[in-house]
């Protein structure tokens, strides 16, 4: 069975995020005030063949840590993409 999975890749705490900082600085000029702690990241959507969702998420987590993220600077979390 195929399970839709979303993998969120975000920078680890303490790693500088020039993209997030630039976005945050741009917001007030557009009238969006009171927005802080903007962090930029990536999301990947996958269909993973597995017996159940737990197995699909485990598979996605493994490939996320091996390829989709660089563990030196990033965290990767797999979650269900259903619904």
């Amino acid at each position, binding site marked *: 069975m195929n399970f839709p999975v979303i993998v969120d890749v975000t920078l680890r705490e*303490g790693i500088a995020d*020039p993209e997030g900082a630039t976005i945050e600085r741009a917001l007030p000029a557009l009238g969006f005030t009171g927005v802080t702690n903007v962090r930029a990241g990536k999301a990947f959507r996958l269909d993973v063949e597995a017996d159940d969702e737990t197995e699909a998420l485990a598979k996605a987590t493994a490939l996320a840590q091996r390829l989709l993220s660089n563990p030196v*600077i990033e965290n990767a979390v797999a979650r269900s993409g259903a619904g």
Partner: protein
Amino acid sequence: MTRIGVVIFPGSNCEYDAALAMTQLGVDVDFVWHSVTDLTGFDGLILPGGFAHGDYLRPGALARFSPVMEAVARFAADGGPVLGICNGFQVLTEAGLLPGALQKNRGLTFISEPVRLVVASTNSVLTRLATTGQELTIPINHFSGAYTCDDRTFDALEANDQVVLRYRDNPNGSRGDIAGVANEGRNIVGLMPHPERAMSTLLGSADGQVLLESFISAPSGLLRAGAANAAAL
């Protein structure tokens, strides 16, 4: 005769500059396609600049899985000198052969300009003929060149004298002004600046010569003697 291999990934674009610099220094040079898995006969390897595999996902993220990289890791584990320039540096960090990672530049701009570097350590295959504190003017040409690592790695790099080059005026937000680092064995070095583009005063600077001379003249007895011996450089 010293024989240097220049690894080409799909999307590398500084391989001819690197090869020309090697020829200028009087050594044999061969191109090595990224699918090659036998690196027998080489005395040193250069991973050149460019956009390996389009830099998709992250610079170096896909290149680290090219077949040649396992052979590069074995070559390095045997003490062979390995130099990663710009994109090559990014590939070596993604492959785990060098500590840390390269992030997008502070300010999110692509920077292409000569920068002033300071030799921070001469204890590496790239800097052994230079002088600590020596200033070199060498161009950079990158978007993702901000060196980053966690506190533990940073402290270890400083304590082990693994930072080999620093920016005099940090152009990209690199932690600790780091422009180049070595592994613990000192036989693998990565740097964002392009020494192969600083080989002639007529073209702006010849300051890359001392670095590449260092690289090609690493004592040949050490080349295959194992990383432990390379540390004694």
